[in-house]
């Protein structure tokens, strides 16, 4: 039986004000009308907006590559438009396909396995306690700037070996790169700032002389394919850990706090039964995927959902739309606290699955657990909270001012 090939044209721009006024509806209508469609923006790209399409595109690296291959739009990279230029170092192992991907990935896997992540629980507790202590007596704060932003940034960057006094600046560069439209001044300024990379190079030089108990020093003791890991490889690995570490768990936790500002019954349920937080984590992940889309490039012609993708076509894969696909989730619009099974794709699928997924869950649960215990009556100022102006890639927040009944410090005195 011959199949009629389709090329449904959609007017879709995930960086536009129209999209960003309501990304949820935009992704939903895309999946319902296509679910695979072609947009003429940014030199042309496909959008994959259903659950099965995510499985095909994210697990089949032979067709859908993460590498910087020539494309029909002249663009490459893991977002559309791709922001990496040829001068930018290739991100390891994110922009490398198997089999070369594996030796790089294995190094990081070994340090972020579930067991190794649990070893970081004391550090996660320390940073959460410290950040909440700094505001608990005041009775008001910005939950994003004071807690959900700094806790993951300090936890991950400290583990990595990034200097303490540059952590907040690095986090802000990542916020501006991921949360603001490509044509905005904030985005351009952040993209032009190479502080993160320079700091990583300097940290490598310092650790060569004097190793410490951090990931950079540990990587220096390791080998890839029988050769010692050099500084450039460490920088290429570390850039991904900075990017993945500072803006993703922040976005998830912030979304959950907004959700619980609007659903007081669920907030009370989680306060009364802290054990519920573990299954709830998966549902918060499904409903608020921090990374809502990711790009690939077609290495060869391929028919997906009756659409002919040409070799070199750019492809934007929407995890967000997949997580609300009624073919994969019953009553997807409903928040079901103990939903099971809950095979969301918020950490991606296939060889590039989020390497930090285990520590992300632990950080989320510690922040939520402490906030619900120490600030159970937190009240967000709904008039003043705001999302990222650009949620095409990261489903994040720009401000979360809140009030709560003041409490007492729990950590060591500052």
């Amino acid at each position: 039986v011959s199949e009629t090939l389709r090329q449904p044209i959609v007017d879709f721009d995930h960086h536009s004000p129209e999209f960003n006024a309501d990304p949820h509806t935009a992704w939903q209508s895309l999946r319902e009308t296509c679910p695979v469609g072609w947009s003429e923006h940014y030199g042309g790209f496909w959008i994959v907006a259903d659950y099965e399409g995510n499985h095909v595109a994210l697990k089949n690296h032979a067709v859908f590559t993460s590498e910087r291959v020539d494309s029909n739009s002249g663009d490459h990279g893991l977002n559309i438009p791709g922001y990496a230029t040829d001068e930018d170092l290739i991100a390891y192992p994110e922009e490398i396909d198997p089999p070369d991907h594996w030796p790089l990935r294995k190094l990081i896997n070994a340090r972020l396995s579930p067991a190794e992540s649990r070893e970081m629980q004391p550090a996660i507790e320390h940073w959460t306690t410290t950040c909440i202590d700094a505001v608990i007596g005041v009775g008001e704060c910005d939950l994003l700037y004071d807690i959900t932003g700094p806790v993951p940034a300090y936890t991950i960057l400290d583990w990595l070996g990034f200097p303490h006094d540059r952590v907040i600046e690095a986090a802000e560069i990542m916020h501006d790169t991921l949360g603001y439209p490509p044509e905005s001044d904030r985005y351009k300024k952040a993209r032009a700032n190479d502080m993160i990379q320079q700091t990583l190079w300097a940290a490598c030089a310092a650790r060569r002389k004097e190793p410490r108990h951090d990931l950079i020093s540990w990587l220096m003791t390791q080998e890839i394919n029988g050769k010692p890991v050099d500084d450039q490889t460490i920088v290429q690995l570390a850039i991904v850990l900075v990017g993945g570490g500072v803006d993703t768990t922040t976005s998830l936790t912030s979304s959950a706090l907004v959700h619980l500002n609007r659903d007081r019954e669920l907030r009370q349920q989680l306060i009364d039964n802290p054990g519920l937080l573990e299954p709830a984590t998966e549902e918060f992940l499904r409903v608020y995927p921090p990374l809502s889309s990711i790009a690939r490039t077609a290495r060869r012609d391929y028919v997906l959902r009756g659409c002919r993708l040409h070799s070199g076509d750019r492809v934007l894969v929407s995890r967000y739309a997949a997580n609300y696909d009624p073919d994969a989730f019953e009553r997807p619009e409903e928040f079901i606290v103990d939903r099971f099974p809950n095979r969301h794709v918020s950490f991606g699928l296939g060889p590039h699955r989020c390497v930090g997924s285990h520590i992300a869950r632990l950080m989320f649960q510690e922040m939520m657990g402490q906030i619900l215990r120490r600030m159970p009556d937190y009240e967000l100022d709904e008039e003043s909270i705001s999302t990222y102006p650009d949620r095409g890639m990261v489903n994040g927040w720009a401000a979360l001012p809140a009030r709560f009944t003041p409490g007492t410090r729990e950590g060591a005195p500052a």
Partner: protein
Amino acid sequence: MKIRVDPELCSGHAVCNAQAPELFSLDDDGYSNIGSLEVPPGMEELARRGMLACPERAITIEE
């Protein structure tokens, strides 16, 4: 009952292990290392939960 984890499909989500650590063990990288395994009597439900949790659909069960 027998469970099988396809090592080609396992991507280290480790959610099977989170459901039933006594059944779904992991290697040092956090990936499944069971290959195929006879499910001890009484643990059939845990095996099913582990299978259903896997987002990669890497786990199959033979009754």
